[in-house]
C-alpha cells in the first residue's frame, strides 16, 4: 500500500533523474571533444567554453532572423567548427610544444577576447531563444509525470552523439587514428598520418560538439557573454574524474556529475531537514549541494589520481 505522498515524491524523483541525465548529456557533449584535445595534443585549452557561447549566440541570432530553431542549429554547428579550426591554426598550434603555463595564459586571452567581442556585437543584455515549436509540449513517459519534450530531446540527441562517436572511433579509419593518437603520439606520426590535419580536425570536432551543446542550452538558459565558463569548470571536473583522453571516461563521469549535482540540489536540503531545523537545513543543504560534485572529485582523486579511465598508462 503506497501513500499518495510517497507516490508524488517518486514522480519528483524520476523527474530529477531525467534532469540529471539531461545535464550529464550536455556535459558529455562539452567534455568528449575537450578530453580528446587534452589527451592527443597535450594542450590545456581554457577557451572551450567560448565555442559553447558562440554556438548559442549564432543560433539565437539566426533564429531571431528566421524564426526557425533548426536553421539556427544548422548555422551554429559549422560556424563553431570553423572558428574552432581557425583558432587552432592561428593560436593553439603554436602552443603544442610550450609548457602548460603558456597554454593557460594564451587560452585565457582567447576567453577575454571572445567574451568582450560578444558584448560588442550583441550588447550586455542576455538573449532569449525558444526551442522549436514541435518540442514545446510535454511528454508523459510515466503516467502522471509530464516532462518537457525539449529536455527529453536533449537527452536523445546526447545519446545519439555518443553512439555516433562510438561508431566513429571503432568503425572508421579516422577514428582509429584519433584513438591511437590519444595513447601514442609518436606511433601515429610514424604511421605517416598527417598529424597537423588530424589535430585541426579533432579540434574542430570538439568545438562543433561544444557549439551543439551551446545551441541546446540556449532555450533553457540565458544566452549571455561568459555563459561558457560555468559549464567549462564542470567540464573540467568531468574530465578529471573520467581521466584525460578517455571518451568512455567522459561519458560515465558526465552522467555521474550530472546526477550528483541535480539530485544533490533537489534532495540534500530535504535530507538535512530530517535532522536540523528548517532554516539551518536549507543553508547547509544549499552549501553542500553546490559543493557536492567537487567533493565527489576529491574523493575519486584520492582513490584514482588519474581518473576512472586513464588513457595513458
Amino acid at each position: 500500500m503506497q501513500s499518495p505522498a510517497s507516490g508524488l515524491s517518486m514522480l519528483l524523483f524520476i523527474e530529477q533523474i531525467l534532469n540529471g541525465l539531461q545535464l550529464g548529456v550536455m556535459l558529455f557533449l562539452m567534455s568528449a571533444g575537450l578530453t580528446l584535445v587534452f589527451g592527443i595534443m597535450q594542450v590545456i585549452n581554457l577557451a572551450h567554453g567560448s565555442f559553447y557561447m558562440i554556438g548559442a549566440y549564432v543560433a539565437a541570432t539566426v533564429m531571431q532572423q528566421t524564426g526557425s530553431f533548426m536553421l539556427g542549429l544548422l548555422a551554429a554547428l559549422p560556424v563553431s567548427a570553423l572558428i574552432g579550426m581557425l583558432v587552432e591554426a592561428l593560436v593553439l598550434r603554436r602552443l603544442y610544444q610550450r609548457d602548460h603555463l603558456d597554454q593557460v595564459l594564451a587560452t585565457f586571452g582567447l576567453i577575454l577576447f571572445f567574451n568582450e567581442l560578444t558584448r560588442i556585437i550583441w550588447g550586455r543584455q542576455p538573449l532569449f531563444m525558444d526551442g522549436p515549436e514541435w518540442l514545446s509540449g510535454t511528454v508523459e513517459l510515466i503516467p502522471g509525470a509530464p516532462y518537457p519534450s525539449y529536455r527529453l530531446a536533449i537527452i536523445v540527441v546526447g545519446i545519439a552523439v555518443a553512439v555516433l562517436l562510438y561508431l566513429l572511433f571503432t568503425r572508421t579509419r579516422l577514428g582509429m587514428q584519433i584513438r591511437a593518437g590519444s595513447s601514442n603520439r609518436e606511433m601515429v606520426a610514424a604511421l605517416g598520418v598527417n598529424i597537423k590535419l588530424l589535430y585541426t580536425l579533432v579540434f574542430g570536432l570538439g568545438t562543433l560538439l561544444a557549439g551543439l551543446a551551446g545551441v541546446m542550452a540556449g532555450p533553457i538558459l540565458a544566452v549571455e557573454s561568459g555563459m561558457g565558463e560555468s559549464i567549462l569548470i564542470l567540464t573540467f571536473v568531468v574530465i578529471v574524474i573520467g581521466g584525460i583522453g578517455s571518451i568512455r571516461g567522459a561519458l560515465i563521469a558526465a552522467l555521474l556529475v550530472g546526477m550528483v549535482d541535480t539530485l544533490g540540489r533537489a534532495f540534500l536540503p530535504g535530507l538535512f531537514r530530517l535532522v536540523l531545523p528548517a532554516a539551518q537545513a536549507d543553508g547547509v543543504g544549499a552549501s553542500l549541494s553546490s559543493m557536492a560534485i567537487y567533493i565527489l572529485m576529491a574523493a575519486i582523486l584520492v582513490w584514482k589520481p588519474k581518473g576512472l579511465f586513464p588513457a595513458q598508462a
Partner: protein
Amino acid sequence: MEAEGTVSGAGLIAMQNFLTRKIAVLSTCLILLLALPVIMQLLDEPYLISLSSRILIYAIAAVSLYLILGYGGMVSLGHAAFFGTGAYVVGILASASFDASPVFSWPFQMDGSERLLVALPLALLISAFAALIIGFFSLRTSGMYFIMITLAFAQMLYYFYVSLEGYGGDDGLSLYSRSQLPLLDLGDDTHFYYLCLTFLLLFLLFCHRLVNSRFGRVIQGIRENEKRMQSLGYAVFGYKLACFVIAGAGAGLAGALMANQSEFVSPGLMHWTQSGEILVMVLLGGMGTLFGPVLGAVALLSMEEILSMFTEHWMVYLGPFLILVVLFTRGGLYGLLIGRER
C-alpha cells in the same frame, strides 16, 4: 653569486653592469613608491593613492602565486580562492562585530572584531588551512590535472561563499569601516597605502629568504625533476604542500588587505577570472625573480585603468595582447627592463 675565478673578465664586467643596473632600477622604484602619496597629493589626484594601494595588494597576491608557480613549477589556476578567503575572514569578523553577535558559538564562542591585529593573523591562518586542504588533494596530481583541479576547488569555494546567505550571499558584504590598528588611521588612504607597502616589502623579504633557504632549494629541485628528488631521499609531497600552504597564506594576506581597501567583500573576489588575472600578472612580469610579479601587477592594473578610460571594451584588446606576449616574448617586462640574468 661567487665569481670563483671561473668567470672570464668580460663576463665579470657584464655581471657587474647587470648588478649595478639592477640596484639602480630597484632603488629608483623604492624611492618612487615611498614618495608616491606625496606626489599624488601635489598633483591633486587622491584617487590614484587608492589605486596604488590596490596595485600593491595585488602585487602581494602575485608574488605569493609566483612562489608556487615560478619556484615550485605548480601552475595553479585557483589562487584567488585563498585571496577571497582572506578577504572573507576580515569581512565576516567585521560584520559580526558590527552586529555584536558571535561568528559562531560552538565549540567555543568566536566574537567578531574590527581590529587588524586580530583579523589579519586569522585571515592568514584560515587561508593557509584552506590551502592545506585543497593542496592535499590537488598535489596528488600534476600537469593538466593539477590546473583543472585547482580551478575546480576554487570554484567550489566560490559557490560556498555564494551560499552564505547570512553574509550577503551572491551580493557580498559591505564593511562598516576599515580595520583598526594602533597609531595608524587606516581610513586615511595615505596611511593605508603605507601599510600595504610595508606588507609588500616584508613579504618580499620573507620570500627572498625563503627561496634562498634549504627549503627554497628543495622546491626548485622538485620543479626541475621530482623523480630525482625522491631518489635523493626527499619526501616531495610534504615540501610541495608546505610551499602551497605558504603561498595560500600570502594570498590570504593580500585578500585581507583587499577587503579593507574596498571595504567590501563578495564571491567575485574568488571568481576564476581573478585567478587568471593574478596568473597574467606573473607572466607579464616575467620569470626568474621575485620583482617580476610586482612589476606585472603594476603593468596589468595600470594598463586596465588606462585602457578603460578610452573604451569600456578594453578586454577585447587585452586578450590578443596576452596571446602575443605568450607567443613572442620570453622573460616578460622584468627581462626588458633589467636584461636577462643568464
